[in-house]
C-alpha cells in the first residue's frame, strides 16, 4: 500500500505547488516539514482530496485519486484536520461516529457495527472513557486525539495528519507523536504528517520531506538527508546539528 505522486501541480492565485515525484510506503511515518507558506498543508490536502489534485497526479494503492469517490476514497485515505471550530457541541462518541459517514447510506443512521468501530478507535487513542463527554469540554490535546480516533473509525489505509501537534504542550506533543508511530507500527498504516518541530520530526519519522516555495527540496530517511546546508537553504537561517547521546538535535 502506498501513495505515489507524479507531476502534481496545484495552483492558488498567488501560489503554486509543484511536486515532480514522491512515494510514501506503508508502515512508515513520513513527516513533511518546511517554513510557513512552503505548501506543506496544500500538499497534504491534495493527497487527502480535500483539494482537487488533477487527474493522473496522485495514485493511492494504484488507483488515481481523482477517480475515487466517496466511500472507496474514504477507504484509502483519511484526513485529520487541524483542530476544527465546531458549531455544535457533539459528544465525543457522536463526533467519532461521523468518521463512519462513507460506510453509512445517506438515509441511514449508524448501526451497531459503526458504534463498535467508533468505540474501538477511541480505545486505541486511549479515550475509551470519554464517549459521553462533549467536544467543548475537551482540552486541546484531547481534541487532537479525538480527531485521530474519528479518522481511525473511518478505517483508511493512509492517514494524513495536518499539524497534529501545533500549540500543544511538550507532554501532549509527545503523546500524539507516540500515537502516530503506533499507527504505522501496530496498524501498518501509511502515515503522512506535517510538522513544525524539526527535532520531533527527526525523532519520530522514518522519512522526511523538506519543502520550500511549493516544491520538494529533499526527501529520504532523516539520517541520510539531514545536514546543515539543507537546513540553511530551506529555512534561510543558520542552524547547527548536534549529536547528543545518539540523537541528532537541531540548534538555532
Amino acid at each position: 500500500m502506498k501513495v505515489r505522486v507524479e507531476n502534481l501541480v496545484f495552483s492558488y492565485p498567488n501560489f503554486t505547488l509543484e511536486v515532480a515525484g514522491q512515494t510514501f510506503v506503508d508502515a512508515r511515518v513520513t513527516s513533511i516539514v518546511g517554513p510557513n507558506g512552503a505548501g506543506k498543508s496544500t500538499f497534504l490536502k491534495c493527497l487527502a482530496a480535500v483539494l482537487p489534485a488533477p487527474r493522473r497526479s496522485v495514485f493511492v494503492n494504484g488507483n488515481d485519486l481523482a477517480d475515487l469517490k466517496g466511500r472507496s476514497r474514504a477507504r484509502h485515505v483519511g484526513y485529520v484536520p487541524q483542530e476544527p471550530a465546531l458549531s455544535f457541541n457533539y459528544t465525543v462518541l457522536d463526533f467519532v461516529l461521523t468518521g463512519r459517514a462513507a460506510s453509512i447510506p445517506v438515509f441511514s443512521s449508524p448501526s451497531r457495527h459503526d458504534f463498535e468501530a467508533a468505540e474501538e478507535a477511541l480505545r486505541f487513542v486511549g479515550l475509551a472513557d470519554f464517549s459521553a463527554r462533549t467536544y467543548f469540554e475537551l482540552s486541546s490535546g484531547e481534541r487532537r486525539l479525538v480527531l485521530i480516533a474519528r479518522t481511525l473509525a473511518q478505517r483508511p489505509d493512509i492517514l494524513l495528519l495536518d499539524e497534529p501537534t501545533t500549540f500543544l504542550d511538550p507532554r501532549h506533543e509527545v503523546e500524539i507523536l507516540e500515537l502516530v508511530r503506533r499507527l504505522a507500527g501496530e496498524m501498518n498504516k501509511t502515515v503522512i504528517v506535517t510538522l513544525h518541530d524539526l527535532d520531533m520530526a527527526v525523532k519520530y519519522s522514518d522519512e522526511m520531506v523538506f519543502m520550500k516555495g511549493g516544491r520538494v527540496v529533499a526527501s529520504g530517511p532523516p539520517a541520510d538527508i539531514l545536514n546543515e546546508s539543507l537546513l540553511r537553504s530551506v529555512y534561510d537561517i543558520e542552524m547547527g546539528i548536534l549529536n547528543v547521546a545518539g540523537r541528532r538535535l537541531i540548534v538555532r
Partner: protein
Amino acid sequence: MSGTRNKKRTAAFILAAVLPVVILILSLNIGAYRIPPKAVFTTILGAVFPGGGNAQPSPYADILFRIRLPRLLLALFAGAALAVSGASLQALFKNPLVFEFSLGISYGAAFGAALSLVFLGRKIPPQAAAFVFAIVAVLAVLVIAGKSASHVVTILLSGVIVSALFQALLSLVEFFANPYALQSLIFWLMGSLAQAEWSDLGITLPIIGVGVTVLILLRWRLNVLSLGDDEARALGVNVSREKVVVIVLAALTTAAATAVTGVINWVGLIVPHLVRMAVGADNRKVIPLSAAYGASLLLVADDIARSAASFEIPIGILTSVVGIPFFIVLLKKSGKIWL
C-alpha cells in the same frame, strides 16, 4: 450527571410522542364558538363510525371538521415544517443562528405566494410560486455571503439584505393590489392560520409531510454536514449534492407552509434550541424532536391567538413577540455549550 441527562432525554421523547396529539385534541375545544368536550368526543366518534349510535349528524360537525380541524392540522404541519427546516439549516450552515427568516427564505416565499394570490389569480399555485422565490432567496444569500458562508455574522447580514429586498418587493405587490386584495394580503402577511381550507391543505400538507419525513431520514447525515464542507468531503460525503437536497427540502417545506399561513417567524430558531438544551446537539434526536415540539408550539400559539382576546391576534405577531427576546438572549450567550 449523565443519569439525569438520560432521564431528561427519555422524558423529552415520551413527551414528544404524546404532546402534539393531546394538544390537538384539547385545541378542538377552543374557539369563538365553545363546544363542550363531550360533544367534541361524540362528534368525532360519529364521524369515524357513521351510523353507529346516534344516526343524527352532530350540529357541531361543520365547525369541527370544516373550520377547526383544517386549521389545527395546518398548525401541526406548519409548526413541524418550520422547526425541522430551521434545525436542518442550522446544521447545514454550521451556524446555530440561521433559520428560515435569517436566510431570506420566509420573505422570498411570502413574495412568491403574494404574486400568485394578487396577480395570477392562483393560476400558478401559491405554494409553487413561494417555493421558487424561497430558492431564489437562499441562493442570493449564498452568493452574497460567498466564501464566508459559514461565518455567523456574514450569513446573518446577507440574510438581512435579501429579506429587505423581498419585503420591498412585497410592498410593491401591495401597492398595486386592489383594496380588497390588499386587506387580505396584509392579514395573511402578519401570519395567520385562519385561512386554512381543505383545498389549500390538499397541496400543503402532503408537501410538508414528505419534506419533513425526508429531513428526518437525513438526521444523522446532518451531523456530518455540520462539520463543514472540507471535513465532510474528507469523510467521503458528496457534500454539494447532499447540501442541495437539504436546502431544497427546507425551502420546499417552508414555502408550502408560508403560502397558506403567511410569515410565521422564529419557530425555526426557538424550537431547535430548546431541544438542544434538553437532549444535546445530536441531530438524530434534534430533528425528530423539533418536528414534535414545533407542531406543539404552533398549536398552542394558535390557541392563544384565537382565544386570548375578543379578536384574533395574528400568530406571526405572537411568535415574533416571544421569539425576538429569545434571539437576543441567544446572541448574548452564543458560544455557550448547547450551541
